[in-house]
């Protein structure tokens, strides 16, 4: 018992506790990323696997590394990649904004509900997770399709005479993605709003702030960490969302995830698929890491000076 205890409580214990997540990330994130990066610079060949080596030996026995950057130049020569990427960013941005607009009032209301009601309301938010994601998306198809719930109802009440085209549109993609990602926005928002000291709002009101002013000057700035966390949790996976655009979106409006899928499985062009995937990670990761780093530096500055 004693050696284990001293191991955990000692400097080595701390190293292990901190090291394990790093090891996890290195094994399951960094390593696959490096493999993908390597494939992105490999030549495309006919074979199994359909990639050639990047390492070789020259005739005089020197190690030769061949980086096939033509995989990357495709990305910029063919506008369809750029368009798909732009469409993914736009869709993710719209989803994030919609989740924020819908999630903020919900989170606010739950945070202000009586302490007895809050767990119940939170369970209602999380409840859809108990059903398979795929089934929920199929349920939306049942609602949105030409002879689906909405169209049948509108036709039956004679509000419309032709079914509305909702399936296979960007509208359906935005709708279902907002639905699917809403809890990821709502929960961090709830956490920050629930922690908000209500006496601050009383102080704002006492000092002459009408409710809307108090919200804008106190509640909103103080819930910024929740807004940032929620937006990241929605935006990042939304950019790479594959299932929803594939099932309810229009085939003519390809998003970046299905481009990778097609390159990989239909064209069997692993290097281009890898280059696209790597580019998405780099274009997404770098700005977001910069943002997070800036925030942390700000927090650290505040803590250090107090």
């Amino acid at each position, binding site marked *: 018992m004693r050696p284990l205890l001293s191991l955990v409580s000692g400097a080595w214990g701390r190293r292990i506790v901190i090291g394990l997540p790093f090891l996890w990330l290195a094994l399951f994130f960094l390593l696959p990323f490096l493999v993908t990066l390597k494939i992105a610079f490999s030549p495309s060949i006919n074979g199994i696997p359909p990639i050639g080596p990047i390492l070789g030996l020259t005739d005089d026995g020197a190690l030769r590394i061949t980086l096939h950057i033509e995989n990357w130049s495709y990305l910029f020569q063919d506008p369809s990649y750029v368009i798909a990427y732009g469409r993914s960013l736009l869709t993710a941005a719209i989803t994030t904004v919609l989740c924020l607009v819908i999630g903020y009032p919900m989170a606010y209301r739950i945070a202000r509900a009586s302490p007895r009601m809050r767990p119940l309301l939170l369970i209602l938010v999380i409840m859809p997770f108990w059903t398979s994601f795929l089934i929920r998306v199929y349920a939306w198809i049942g609602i949105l399709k030409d002879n689906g719930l909405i169209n049948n109802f509108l036709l039956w009440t004679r509000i419309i005479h032709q079914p509305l085209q909702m399936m296979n549109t960007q509208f359906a993609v935005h709708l279902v993605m907002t639905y699917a990602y809403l809890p990821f926005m709502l929960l961090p928002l709830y956490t920050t709003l629930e922690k908000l000291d209500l*006496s*601050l709002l*009383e*102080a*704002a009101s*006492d*000092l002459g702030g009408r409710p809307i002013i108090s919200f804008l000057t106190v509640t909103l700035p103080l819930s910024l960490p929740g807004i940032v966390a929620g937006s990241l949790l929605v935006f990042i996976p939304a950019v790479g969302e594959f299932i929803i655009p594939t099932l309810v979106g229009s085939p003519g409006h390809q998003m970046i995830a299905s481009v990778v899928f097609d390159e990989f499985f239909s064209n069997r062009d692993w290097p281009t698929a890898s280059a696209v995937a790597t580019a998405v990670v780099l274009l997404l990761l770098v700005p977001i890491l910069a943002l997070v780093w800036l925030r942390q530096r700000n927090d650290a500055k*505040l803590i250090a000076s107090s």
Partner: protein
Amino acid sequence: MQFTPTDGANALHPPHIRIEGVSKRFGGFTAVRDIDLTIGRGELFALLGGSGCGKTTLLRMLAGFADPSTGRIHIGDRDVTHLPPYERPVNMMFQSYALFPHMTVAANIAFGLKREGLPKPEIARRVEEALALVKLDGLGGRKPAQLSGGQRQRVALARAVVKRPEVLLLDEPMSALDKKLREHTQFELMAIQRQLGITFVMVTHDQEEAMAMATRIAVMDGGRIMQVGSPRDIYETPRSLFVADFIGSVNMLEGQVVETQGAEAAMDCPALGRRIVFAAGRNLALGETVALALRPERITIGQAASGANHVHGQIQALAYHGGASVFRVLLPTGTLLQVTRPNLVEGSGSTLAIGDAVTLSWSPQATTVIET
């Protein structure tokens, strides 16, 4: 109770806040019951009581955070009963200070002025003034997290007075400070109050704080006001057992009146096992049961009798407080009396010891008749 609503609001302090028949119910719980109270302009008024006595609810109704269930509240000539907080000529200093953590000290203080739409140079000037008033010049650029507890309290004060409210409400203003800083701050708050001439209404559970600072005190219990008066009135002539007991230590003596003679009366007190003489204060009937409050410091402790009333006993416990010593004296009847003696000369704290036989004496004027 027997006070009149305008008690103490005199020529020096003309009426400023009038509370008429105010009650507050939360569901089935009544936090404040039918309170009538007038607070004078420029007073430093203390609402004093234990937790749950309704003092904070009353303060919150003055601020506008709680709506009275019945009754009216007037500030000056205005009926503010149902005005929202942001339309009242009142500012509050919160117990937790409630400083905006994301704003600098200067932005915190400027918050209320911005809401009035004042021009920027005017706001900057008044923020500087307020910072100077609370002796925090030069700290306007700091965030609240970078300040000490005492400094935060000053920012809260500056933020609350910068709008020049008619009334400043203070919710347990000193509760988060340590004892030394608290005493210092009491004097400073009083000085600032005199300087600004604002009516202060302060909520506190600390009777010493209320006594030291307030022009008048309302002692509250169970949502009611038990007594309103100057600190001296409340201490020297408590009207009820609750008030006598809440404000300082007190020995309670009960008995039947056996003799009246002018302003003085005598009663047989079973707890002391003898007859004592006391200042009646009003006409008493023979045979009437009365209760007397006897403050510990009004009793003389020594070897010889020195007053009209005296009893013998034995020191059962003593506590040395530096400036004074507190004795518990056991009488032959089994009654314990508490006695406080100032330690006037060096070594006087050690002349008496546990187990010593002593005589306790007090004059007829040392006791106060309590209404029961």
